[in-house]
């Protein structure tokens, strides 16, 4: 039986780990390679790096981080942040990433997902959707949640599936950093709309939230950052908890 995945996410800036509350107020807390190693040893099913390096001159730092991580961790590594072109994707993959997550460019460059999934295979193309609720709908935001697009999330999710995305990483901007739990309605609505796996993200504060993401959101994978990063819970504890609640996990 296929297991639900637990994916710890590390925000990386200038080659160092950070995690912000609602994408601001960043704290520096360590070496991403060491963190990734700890995660993979404690049973992480995948590891995700989100590169939030702002300046171009420091962009290269992520490649070294990926290279060193992939030499030491033998679970899938997803890297996102600032991916704009086929060349960007290629550089990340060659450095050792297994999947690349694409956010803003998936919205702005309508052929990127089609072209990249064709060139590199759907298995390595993850479309990251940042969604914010507006009345009874959700809207796509880009540029780390700063830019409103007016695009409907459900329509966009379907379009990305048709373009060849292998997975969708759904982050609720309303919940991210709040520790109030995933936006279950958002996750489950998208899950009903598409037939590719969904990764739930944004808002995890307790292990129960992970459970809700799988059970009620029907997510194939659950992503969380701060609860693992600050040691509130270990990956192992999360898995044991989910197992006790009847969710299939790799133990």
């Amino acid at each position, binding site marked *: 039986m296929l*297991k639900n995945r637990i994916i710890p996410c590390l925000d990386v800036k200038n080659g160092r780990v950070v995690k912000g509350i609602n994408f601001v107020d960043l704290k520096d807390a360590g070496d991403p390679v060491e963190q990734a190693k700890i995660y993979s040893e404690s049973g992480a*099913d995948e590891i995700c790096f989100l590169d939030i390096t702002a300046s171009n001159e420091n962009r290269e730092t992520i490649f070294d981080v990926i290279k060193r991580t*992939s030499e030491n961790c*033998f679970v899938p590594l997803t890297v996102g942040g600032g991916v704009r072109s086929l060349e960007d994707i290629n550089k990340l993959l060659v450095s050792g990433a297994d999947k690349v997550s694409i956010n803003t460019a998936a919205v702005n460059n309508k052929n990127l997902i089609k072209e990249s999934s064709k060139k590199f*295979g759907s298995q390595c193309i993850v479309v990251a959707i940042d969604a914010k609720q507006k009345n009874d709908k959700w809207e796509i935001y880009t540029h780390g949640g700063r830019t409103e697009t007016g695009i409907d999330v459900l329509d966009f999710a379907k379009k990305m599936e048709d373009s060849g995305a*292998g997975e969708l990483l759904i982050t609720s901007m309303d919940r991210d950093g709040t520790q109030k739990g995933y936006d279950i309605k958002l996750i489950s609505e998208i899950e009903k709309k598409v037939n590719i796996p969904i990764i739930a993200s944004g808002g995890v504060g307790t292990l129960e939230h992970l459970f809700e993401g799988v059970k009620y959101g029907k997510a*194939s994978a659950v992503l969380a950052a701060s609860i693992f990063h600050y040691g509130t819970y270990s990956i192992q504890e999360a898995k044991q908890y989910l197992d006790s609640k009847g969710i299939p996990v790799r133990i």
Partner: protein
Amino acid sequence: MNIAIIDYESGNISSVINSFKKVCTNQNIEIKIEVTSDLKTILSSDKIILPGQGSFKNCTKSLEKIKGLKDTLNEFAIIKKKPLFGICVGMQMFADVGYEETETKGLGWIGGNVKKIDNKENQFKLPHIGWNELSFTSNSKLFRDIKEKSHVYFVHSYKFVPDNETYVSSKTNYSEAIVASVEKDNLFGTQFHPEKSDSVGLKIIENFINL
């Protein structure tokens, strides 16, 4: 020992390279790993890894783009009968034919075809992504010291359907029993990615190296 990882622009192979290097370092085995498309180097290697990502059609096309590569692989694996390990689409290409995108001829090493996983009217998400269990159907050398129901990492939407089950060494369950690995004499193949399957995957790689 010389191991050649076939470089034919079949997608991202850095993880394959890293995992083999890691196993060699752990084992203190004197092994030279070459990532190559040079026919002479390939033919003179002791073992070959045939990776493959993306579609059956694209991988076969890339293989054919390198003049003489298909014949060289045939000579290595079928005539000389030296160990070859196909990973994911690398394994799928052992089949006679694949139906991804369009009908494409495979290497024809193990009778069968490659077709889309039945998602049972969208009850099952595709691609089949993540950790699933191995259920052994024969005693494969590749799985020495690996426990039944061990987890390995899959990413695929197409499955290998062999003409007969003789060469299937393990299966996994996703909407139906799907071929997880094949073994025929010196030919080994996994649908899953040992290079991404943590300690179980590294053990499988070690077993291949120690064949």
